[in-house]
C-alpha cells in the first residue's frame, strides 16, 4: 500500500502549488466529484479547495443545489463538483439519483468521499456504496478534531488497507489535512496510486447468483464496463435510469447525456 500521502516534506505538499480558481473552470485536466453524508463538512472542504464561499450550515442537507468550482494544483487544472449530501445511493430520491448518476455516468477522475470521523460506521455505508460504482476514490476523514475531543481513535492505515483507497485525516474547518488531500487526489487522478476498492461480499447466495447471471448477460452487451455488479444490482432494484441506459445502449458509451440537466 502506498503511503506517499503521508510524506510531508515532498514538494507536492507545499501550499504554493495550490491556486484556487473559484468558478473559472475552462480547460480542466481532471474532474473531481465530492460526495459524502449530509453534515460532514463537505462544503467546507469544497470551499477550501476552490476558494469559493458556499454557505456551509450546521444543518443536514444544506447543500441542495450542486456547486462547481475549480483549482489548479501542480500545473494541473481540476474541476470540483460538489454533489448533494446523501445517506445512501440506493433510494429513489432526486438527490441520490443526481449523486449516483454523476459518479457512474459523469465518470469523475477521482471521487473524494468526505466522511465524519466521529460517526465512521454510519458514513462507511455510503463509502462502500460509492466503491461499488467507482474504483478511483479518496476518503477524506473529516472532523478529526471533534473525534479527538470525543476520544475516538481511528487506525487510518488499516482503514486504507480495508477500503483499498487513500485515507486522509483532516479538519477542514481548521484547514488541516487539505494539502495531504490534494496530494492524494493528484496521485489517484494521475494513476500513480492504483485503488483496489473494497467490494461487498456478504450477500445471500440467492442474490449473488442473481447478480452473476445478470452480469453474464451484461458482459455480452457492454464488454469492458468496470462496475457491472453495480449495474446488475441497480437493475434488480428496478432503477429506471439504469433500465433506460440499458435500453438505449447508452450504458456502453457511458455518455454523459443521462446526467440530469442541472449537473
Amino acid at each position: 500500500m502506498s503511503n506517499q500521502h503521508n510524506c510531508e516534506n515532498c514538494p507536492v505538499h507545499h501550499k504554493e502549488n495550490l491556486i484556487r480558481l473559484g468558478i473559472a473552470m475552462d480547460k480542466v485536466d481532471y474532474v473531481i466529484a465530492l460526495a459524502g453524508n449530509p453534515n460532514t463538512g463537505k462544503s467546507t472542504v469544497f470551499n477550501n479547495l476552490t476558494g469559493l464561499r458556499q454557505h456551509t450550515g450546521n444543518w443536514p442537507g444544506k447543500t441542495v443545489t450542486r456547486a462547481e468550482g475549480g483549482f489548479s494544483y501542480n500545473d494541473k487544472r481540476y474541476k470540483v463538483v460538489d454533489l448533494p449530501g446523501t445517506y445512501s445511493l440506493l433510494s429513489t430520491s432526486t438527490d441520490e439519483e443526481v449523486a449516483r448518476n454523476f459518479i457512474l455516468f459523469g465518470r469523475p477522475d477521482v471521487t473524494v468521499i468526505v466522511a465524519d470521523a466521529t460517526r465512521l460506521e454510519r458514513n462507511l455505508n455510503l463509502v462502500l456504496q460509492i466503491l461499488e460504482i467507482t474504483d478511483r476514490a479518496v476518503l477524506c476523514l473529516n472532523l478529526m478534531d471533534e473525534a479527538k475531543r470525543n476520544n475516538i481513535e481511528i487506525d487510518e492505515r488499516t482503514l486504507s488497507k480495508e477500503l483499498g483507497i487513500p485515507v486522509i485525516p483532516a479538519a477542514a474547518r481548521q484547514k488541516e489535512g487539505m494539502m495531504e488531500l490534494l496530494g492524494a487526489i493528484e496521485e489517484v487522478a494521475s494513476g500513480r496510486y492504483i485503488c483496489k476498492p473494497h467490494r461487498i461480499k456478504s450477500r445471500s447466495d440467492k442474490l449473488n447468483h442473481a447478480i452473476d447471471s445478470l452480469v453474464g448477460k451484461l458482459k455480452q452487451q457492454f464488454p469492458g464496463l468496470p462496475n457491472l455488479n453495480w449495474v446488475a444490482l441497480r437493475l434488480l432494484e428496478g432503477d429506471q435510469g439504469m433500465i433506460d441506459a440499458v435500453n438505449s445502449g447508452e450504458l456502453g458509451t457511458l455518455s454523459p447525456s443521462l446526467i440530469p440537466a442541472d449537473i
Partner: protein
Amino acid sequence: MENKEKVSAEEILSLANTLRWDLGMNLHDTVTESIYEGASKIAKKTVRVKDEKSSVNWDLKIDKVVTSKWLGFPIMFFLLALVFWITVAAANIPSGWIASLLIDTLHPILKNGAAAIGFPWWLSGVLIDGAYLSVAWVVSVMLPPMAIFFPMFTLLEDFGYLPRVAFNMDSLFRKAGAHGKQALTMSMGFGCNAAGVVATRVIDSPRERLIAIITNNFSLCNGRWPTQILIASIFIGGLVSSRWAGIVSAGAVVGVAVLGIFFSLVVSWALSRSVLKGEASAFSLELPPYRPPRILQTLYTSLIDRTIFVLWRAVVFALPAGILIWLVANIHIGELSLAEWFINWSDPFAMLFGLNGVILLAYIIAIPANEIVIPTVLMLTVISSGIAGVGAGDGVMFELDSIADTERVLRAGGWTLLTGINLMLFSLLHNPCSTTIYTIYKETKSVKWTMISTFLPIVMGFAICFFTTQVWRLLVK
C-alpha cells in the same frame, strides 16, 4: 446490428425481472443490510473509543436543557423574540440613512439634473419618479432588516440550534400534517417569504415541502411589517390614550402575525387532508453536534448574499412596477388618469370588503414589492381625493414624516377604523409578492402549485375581509 442490440437489451431486462420475482420483496432490505454488515466489520477493525465515560458529553447536556419539557419552549421563544427585536430595533437606523440618502437627497438632485439637461417631463417622470424611486424604496425598506435578520438566523443554524427547534416543534406541525422543519421555514418567512420558500429545501419529504412552500406566505414578511405598524398606530393605537397607544398597536401587529401562524397551520392541515393527502412520508431529523459558529465569516457571507438578493429583486421586480405606477397615475383618458378610472370603477366593489379602490389598485400594481404599498396608497389617495399641498406630484410615491400627517391624508381619503383593520388583514392575506411567486415556481417547477400558492391566500383575504366588514357593519352602527 442495431436490431441485435435491441433484442439483447430486452433479454437483459426480462431476465432482471424474472430474477426480481425470485428474490422476493425484501431485496432492498438485504442489500442495505449487507452493506452495513461490511461497514460494521471495517469499523470494528479501525475505530477505537477510549474511555467513553471520562469525557463530558456537552452536546447531550445542552440538548437536555434546550429540549426539556419546561425550558425548551421558553428558550425557543426567547431566542426568536430576541432575533426579531434586534431586527426591528436595529433596522430602523440604517433604513433611515439609506432613505435620506436615496430618497430625500439623491432624488431631488437627479430630478434637477434631468431638468438641467433638458429631459422632457415624462421621461424624467418615468425614469426618476417611477423606476428610480421604487428601487430606492425597496432597498431602503428591505435591505437593513434582511441584512440583520438572516445573519442571526444563520448563526443559530451554524451553532446547531435550529434542528432542535424543529425537533421541539414537530409534534405541533405533525398534527397539521406538516414537518417540524416548517417551524424554521416559517420563521425565515418573517424575514422574507422568498427566502423562506428557498429554505424549504431542508425538508426532504416532497409533500411536507410543498405544504411549507404554499403556506410560507402566511408569515408576515419584512416588507409588510412597516405597513402593519403604521396602520396599527394610526387606527388602533388611536383608540386608546396616548400612554397605551404604543403597546396596544404593537399588540395588534403581533396579533396579526400570530393570526398568520394560525392560518399557516390550518391551511397546512387542510392541504394535507385534501389535495396533498399524505403525511410525513419520510420523517427523520438528524440532530447534529453543536459547533461554535464562525461569526465573522457568517456575517460577511450573509451580508453579501442578502445585499445581492435585495438589489436583484429591486431591479428585476420593483423597477418595472415603479414605471407602471407612474404611468398609471399620469396617463389620462379624458379628464381622469387611468388610476382614477380604476379607483372610481372598483370602489363600490372594494367597499363590500371594507377596503377601497385605492387599496385594490395599490395591491395590484405593487405586487412586485409589498414595501411600496404604503407610498403608493398615499400617492393614489392624494390623487383621487384631490387633497392639496401634500405629496410630490402625480405618480411620485411618498411617505410622510409624521404619523399625524399620514392619518390626515388617509382620513381625507375616507378611511375609517374598519378600513384600517381590513387593510391589516388584507396585508396578511393576499398573493405573495412576485419575487416569491417566481421563487415558488422555480422551486416547485409546477404552474399548478404556483397558482394555488398565489390565489389561495388572496381568496382567503377577500373572504375574511368580507365577513369582518359585514359583521362589523351589522354590530357597529
